[in-house]
């Protein structure tokens, strides 16, 4: 926004959020103001051309059509066409999608209903085959990236090696993945292998809190 663009008005202390944001929240970009300010000059030519068009149509309707009507023989009866409604289809419409297109994967494995304040969440779904489905969610701050992935395969999922930890009432493990990052893994009852990959700066308890806040569907 720039000077002259209004901020929302009529607010009070009741509209304050419960806590401060953890990152700067930019103001939404406003639509440009309509150009109907006092003293603004409008180009008249479109109106002139439009008015001329209306006059021309009026001329045709007023002069040419009545002359054609006079040419009709008197005493004839005009009638409406017999069929004005197309006949109902006898078969149900078929799927317009070509049969060779793969249907999009729509079943969510999990959602993040309460992401940490200031983080944006980006979901991604992949289905490489009918028995291999993966959903990921990446929580991003300016400096922190946390990746949550849920994997469903035909084979029974196996937990990787690591230190045991209790997550969402299930047995899980914590193990280092790459330098400066580690992963928290556990298996949900629907044989879904969950993994949260995060920087080491985030304590394990925070990751467990994040895992507890997930909604597995």
């Amino acid at each position, binding site marked *: *926004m*720039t*000077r*002259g*663009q*209004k*901020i*929302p*008005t*009529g*607010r*009070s*202390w*009741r*509209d*304050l*959020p419960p*806590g*401060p*944001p*953890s*990152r*700067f*929240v*930019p*103001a939404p970009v406003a639509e440009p103001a309509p150009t109907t300010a006092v003293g603004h000059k409008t180009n008249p030519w479109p109106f002139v051309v439009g008015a001329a068009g209306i006059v021309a149509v009026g001329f045709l309707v007023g002069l040419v059509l009545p002359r054609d009507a006079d040419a009709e023989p008197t005493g004839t009866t005009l009638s409406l066409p017999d069929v004005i409604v197309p006949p109902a289809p006898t078969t149900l419409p078929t799927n317009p999608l070509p049969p060779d297109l793969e249907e999009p994967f729509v079943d969510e494995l999990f959602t993040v209903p*309460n*992401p*940490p*304040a*200031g983080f944006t969440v980006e979901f991604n779904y992949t289905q490489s085959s009918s028995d291999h489905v993966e959903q990921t969610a990446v929580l991003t701050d300016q400096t*922190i990236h946390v990746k949550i992935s849920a994997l469903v395969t035909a084979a029974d999922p196996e937990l990787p090696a690591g230190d045991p930890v209790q997550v969402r009432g299930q047995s899980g493990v914590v193990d280092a993945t790459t330098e400066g990052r580690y992963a928290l893994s556990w298996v949900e009852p629907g044989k879904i292998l969950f993994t949260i990959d995060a920087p080491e*700066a*985030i304590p394990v308890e*925070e990751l467990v*809190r*994040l895992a507890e806040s997930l909604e597995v569907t």
Partner: protein
Amino acid sequence: MTEFEDAAELISQAREELHRVVVGQERMLDRILVSLIADGHCLLEGVPGLGKTLTLSTLAKVMGGSFSRIQFTPDLLPSDIVGTRLYRPSAERFDVEPGPILANFVLADEINRAPAKVQSAMLEVMAERQVTISDRTFPAPQPFLVMATQNPIESEGVYPLPEAQRDRFLMRVPVDYPTLDEERKIIERMDLGSNAAETLLGPQAVLELQRSARAVVVPESVREYALGLVQATRHPLEAGLTQLDGLIAFGASPRASIALIRCGRALALVRGRDTVSVQDVYDVAYDVLNHRLILSFDAVADGVGIDDILVEILSRFPARDGWLAAG
């Protein structure tokens, strides 16, 4: 129990005693207690009939100490507040008669009904806690707290408070209507007869609470957040709040930064903690800042209010206080 937990327990008992008379209004009571513990003056603003005067007189009763009430009227004179010199014919000399302002708790009721010359009489005592009459200076008793009420909707017979005096109030607290359940309880109490609050503390206990509040730790990140908020009111462009450019004529003064930290400390103590969090400062920021900003002509012309500006600042200005802490 630690010193801070003891203090929180004491404050909790005082709050319960207040609730024997005042129904609900948790937000207002929080702010009044914070103002008392932070050793600052408090201005309650709300439509008539919400219990502002009752709350403040009950607080004075619960806290003990001397109490005086000044009903501000258009014909009030400065000497009616601070005191005056009186000629004693029997002694053939002038004596100083101190005014009602020299009490521990001063209730300035309907403060905006007195003109500016009377308000000016309050400036010295509110800022420097002393009164000068003729050539003599009298210190205000400790603790000293001015609790004022004003009605924001009337325009007849009222005078807006001068900016210098508004700035001397630590907080300006809006008082809201009670909820349906609270109002039902108010009516039930009215039928049963009025309750009376007992004195729980005394001036010494209040001073002890104020001393404990000063010992609450303020981390660097919290200090930076408070400073950042005040700076954002003065230089919104530098804070990235481009939408506020040209809307604030005068931002908050350094007194606001001091007030944010003092109120943050007091709220942390009310909550039983020995360290201020960003949330504490955030919770008091609206009440500390809302009477310290002066809008530009552009803002007034566009119908933008102080509340719109503060909601914009507080909901967008960031606080870095840990990863999931703010969530």
